[in-house]
């Protein structure tokens, strides 16, 4: 097994053999602009092209295919500096279903930019669950720019979850735009913990345009030291029985600053969108409960934040 693959898996705390020795698990491993490994399963098609700074890949799950085990994807860069540009075109064809677990790992980053441009189409009655976990180093020298556009066709289900709680964020500018047709479901979650001078910017837009479409935008963020977070969530519902919810929770410690702008727009009398936003320091009653059991204040706050980000 190439050394780089060992390093990639080690950085995300996984044993490569558990994934690589199992023929039933599809996987794609990419280091900078080099595809280190690909293993496919029936119904999963990957057309990948290495570019100067990254990868241009089309991933298709063919009509009616149900991929049982999540596809494991790893994008990483071991050096301290560099650029990685990933362009993805993901198609989950009608009635197909698949999940992807992606790890993005930059354990030694000092000056790394990672961009991801994804175009996703979830077909009629299809199901697609995407989970992306970031593992960053302690220096915060990463800039992450994920941009995703999603269309969920009638009866499709789309969920995406972004997790960045290991290592420093650096800067993240996340944009997501999802359009949901009739009776489709979208569930968008982000969980991010920032420290130092990290900058977190989320801009998520959900459009529930089909009858009975349902969608939720959830952002849970904790910032401390001098970190800043700004969350702009927009959810519009413009069809009968479309239902949406925006949930933004941000815990702020030290000199950190958090801002949330939930925009909910309803332009059909039978549609309904709710939102809740809670921004503030760690809840006193939660803190005092744990402290009354003997935990010190910092440990209590850490446990509360860990829960919120879990």
């Amino acid at each position, binding site marked *: 097994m190439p050394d780089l693959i060992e390093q990639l898996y080690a950085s995300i705390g996984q044993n490569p053999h558990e994934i690589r020795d199992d023929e039933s698990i599809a996987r794609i491993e990419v280091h900078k602009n080099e595809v280190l490994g690909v293993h496919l399963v029936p119904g999963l098609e990957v057309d990948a092209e290495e570019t100067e700074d990254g990868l241009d890949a089309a991933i298709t799950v063919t009509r009616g295919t149900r991929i049982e085990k999540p596809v494991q994807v790893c994008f990483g860069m071991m050096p301290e500096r560099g650029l990685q540009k990933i362009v993805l075109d993901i198609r989950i064809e009608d009635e197909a279903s698949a999940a992807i677990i992606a790890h993005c790992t930059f354990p030694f980053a000092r000056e790394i930019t990672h961009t991801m441009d994804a175009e996703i189409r979830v077909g009629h009655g299809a199901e697609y669950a995407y989970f992306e976990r970031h593992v960053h180093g302690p220096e915060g020298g990463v800039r992450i720019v994920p941009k995703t556009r999603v269309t969920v066709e009638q009866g499709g289900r789309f969920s995406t979850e972004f997790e960045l709680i290991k290592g420093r964020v650096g800067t993240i500018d996340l944009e997501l735009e999802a359009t949901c047709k009739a009776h489709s479901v979208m569930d968008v979650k982000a969980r991010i913990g920032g420290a130092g001078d990290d900058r977190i910017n989320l801009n998520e837009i959900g459009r529930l345009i089909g009858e009975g479409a349902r969608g939720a935008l959830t952002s849970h963020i904790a910032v401390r030291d001098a970190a800043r977070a700004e969350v702009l969530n927009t959810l519009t519902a413009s069809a009968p029985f479309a239902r949406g919810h925006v949930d933004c929770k941000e815990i702020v410690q030290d000199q950190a600053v958090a801002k949330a702008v939930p925009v909910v727009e309803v332009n059909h009398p039978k549609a309904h969108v709710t939102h809740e936003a809670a921004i503030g320091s760690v809840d006193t009653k*939660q803190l*005092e409960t*744990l402290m*009354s*059991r*003997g*935990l010190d*204040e910092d440990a209590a706050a850490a*446990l509360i934040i860990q829960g*919120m980000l879990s």
Partner: protein
Amino acid sequence: MGVLDVEGVFLTKNGVPILNGLSLEVWEGHVHAVVGPNGAGKSTAASVIMGLAGYRDFEGDVLLGGESIKDLSVTERGRRGLTLAWQEPARFEGLSVSDFIGATLDAENREVIRESLDMVGLEPDDYIDRAVDKSLSGGERKRIELASILAMNPRVVVMDEPDSGIDVAALEHIFDNLDTLKERNTTVLLITHSPTVLRRAEHAFLMCCGRVVDKGSVDRIAPYFEQQCIPCDHKNRPEKDAAGT
């Protein structure tokens, strides 16, 4: 001198006097009850004892084992074995029951988490991985609060209305746990206005208008509370003549 003493505490909130010379002497290893009508200041007394934010500025003193704890943080009080079961326990998004109950346990004592859930009548397998959040019913949350206290094994516990939101069957578990605490020589201060809970204590303090107006054996205080206080229309308003209390 008791294991926990509240000495002549006067506390005002927004200019309103809430505690008016409250004194309590709580004996080691015994179950005590503080009874009194709504608004008597019972939960306020609990907050003062635990040293919660907003309840640290008062006249008088609170002693644990004969030493003033007035200047100690909540954590420090917890570490000395004093704890509080909230009337309405906090909810924690995403925090698992096992992490909550096990917050102060060493790795080798994790089995205590399951034991304590079992003791409060909750099936460990069903609850251990759930979150201590709003998905729990009020009664389940109260029982998990008690489980976390059993796991902590404190020296003194103040239980603010342990029966509120608890059904009859679960109340039996709570009473069994009172026996367990007593066997472990844990001192219990029950805050209640339920005659049933009051009857589980050995000693009682009758509170009205922010102070103790009578104290003694439960056998004596309970009938008085039931017959005089429950129907009383005085309801903590000192401007009405307090002579009858």
